């Protein structure tokens, strides 16, 4: 898998989004296109040129799974690797997330200093 530089990040909670943004940008050195909901992500995707989709699962409106399904319909993100960030990390739940076409899951609450490393590890193991 090519090196991850640009991440399309979808998270409805502004506080968590802020923390993750700082971690991804300042600690990980990624370029992040932030979206507050699934619809916003679908709108941004064609021009985002993202190397990775990082999605929250539980969101009002389109949830993470539905957003990913929609993004897969767009040529720009049809093949883009995806990772879910969620508190739902029971083995059966993780299996459900992966079945949606994600590389893996990062559990919430996450350690912001470790977040970039976790992302790179998941992408490397894919």
């Amino acid at each position, binding site marked *: 898998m090519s090196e991850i530089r640009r991440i399309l990040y979808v998270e409805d909670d502004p506080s968590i989004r802020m*923390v993750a943004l700082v971690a991804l940008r300042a600690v990980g050195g990624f370029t992040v296109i932030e979206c507050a909901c699934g619809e916003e992500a679908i709108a941004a995707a064609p021009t985002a040129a993202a190397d990775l989709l990082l999605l929250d699962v539980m969101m009002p409106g389109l949830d993470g799974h539905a957003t990913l399904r929609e993004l897969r319909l767009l040529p720009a993100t049809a093949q883009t690797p995806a990772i879910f960030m969620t508190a739902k990390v029971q083995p059966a739940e993780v299996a459900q997330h992966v079945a949606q076409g994600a590389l893996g899951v990062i559990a919430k609450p996450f*350690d912001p200093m470790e977040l970039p490393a976790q992302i790179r590890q998941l992408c490397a193991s894919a």
Partner: protein
Amino acid sequence: MKFRTKINLALGLGLSLVVLFGLGAYGTIRDFLGDARTESQSHDAVLMLERIVSRLKATESAQRKFLITGQPRDLQSYQRNHAGTVHAAAAARRSPAFADDRGLLDALEAVLRQRLDRMELVVRASESGGHDAVVALVGSDVSRTLDEEIDRLVRAVKVSESASLEAAQTQTERKARIMVWLVGGGGLVSVALLGWAIVLVQRHEARQRQAETRLSRNEARTRQIMNAVPAMIAYADAFRRVQFHNQACEEGLALTAERVHGRHLNDVFADADGASPEVHIEQAYAGYAASFQAVFCNAQGARREYEMNYFPRYGEGEDEGRVVGIYALGTDITEFKRIDRLKSEFVATVSHELRTPLTSIHGSLGLLGGGVAGPLPEMARTLVEVASVNSERLIRLLNEILDSHKIESGAMRLELRATALQPLLAQAVASNTGFAAQHQVTLELDAPEPELRARVDPDRFTQVVTNLLSNAAKFSPPGARVQLVLLRGSEGARIEVRDRGAGIPADFHQRIFQRFSQADASDARRKGGTGLGLSISRDLVERMGGRLDFRAEPDGGTTFFFELPLVEALQAEALP
């Protein structure tokens, strides 16, 4: 004195009196019969005497006639009468009528014989033609004297017979009078005893009626209470047939009384979803209380959830030690389950909602502490660290509450796979070394057989070991070391966490694995923790096939341990 004893006494006395009076009456009748016999014998004796005297007179008369006529016919008449007299005397001697006058009779017979001999002497003299001899003999006073003696003896015998008859009659009359008194008195006593027995029986019956009334009243009250209880209560005999049930059974099971009473438990308590209660029923009949949940459709057709309990009833006397029946108790938990579901949903929602802001708080603190926003002054760095540690603690508490909720609601799912345990333990030690250091405690891993493998969920296994290590660190004195040991136990891979703490108070031993339990409530604040960790750990270990337990060490401290079934090397390769 008991009723039965009193009745037996009255009847016994009455019966004894009846027997006594019967015997007395029998004796008296025998005496009367004896008297009649004596009287008859006396009459016989008199008749026989008169017959002897009459025969003697006839003999005398025939002798005189022969002496005058000299006719052989008259001689024969004399001889017949002579023999008849002898015969009558012989008959009198044989007769029992003269039993009391034997002496007089003997004397009479002797005189009679002399008199007959005298007549015979005269007859022979006449036959031989000695006229003078005849005259001499007839004219002698001997015959007259003998006749007078005979008359005297006959009178004496008659007087004697009459006297003995009178004496016997007097004796019998005396006995009869005594018997009249005895029978009269005894009759009165018997009537009194009979009256006593009747009174006793009436009192007893009255008491029995009272007892029956009380029993019936108590039974009605018990039934009223039973019917007022909002739970199904039933009792079945040794043949699994329902012998008692309350109103709630009929309503809860939508059955009439006839469809419950006397019917088999399996049929009465058949689950609406088809689950058979048989295994639980048989468990109770085997002597073990059984508890399970069941669903029944009530009389209104509504599905209701029940907590069913079966309790064995042991017999007494010759049935002692045997289960002679079982009690069934069914509690409607539909509402409780609904509230429980609401509570669980509430806990899950609140925990999740709390975790969302905590994620950003903890993340922000982590970024600040990590210097992402630039270097912090010393004091700010210390404060951020305090905030970060406590946000981490809060997250841990929330995770435990969520885990406990998952276990309780049955939502906890483990992904078991054959795993080498030593690396997981090493990782747990590494992860907890920092925490232990805060309590100035050292963690040590001792794994003499590092290749041991078991089927575990690695995350949950690590969670259990982490919980045990953090507890051991928290409750060990500064400078102590906590040992984590992996060895081969009797039932598989054995994991032990040995601390050097003050030990667990004895009164806490029973509660230690209960949810929200703390030995000392103040410890919860001082040491941190919800009291859920050990409860969750025990459940997780059970789901991995083991059992978490502990023992107090003789030299102080406590060892928590569990064993998991081993996965042998070859088997492990075949497993995922």
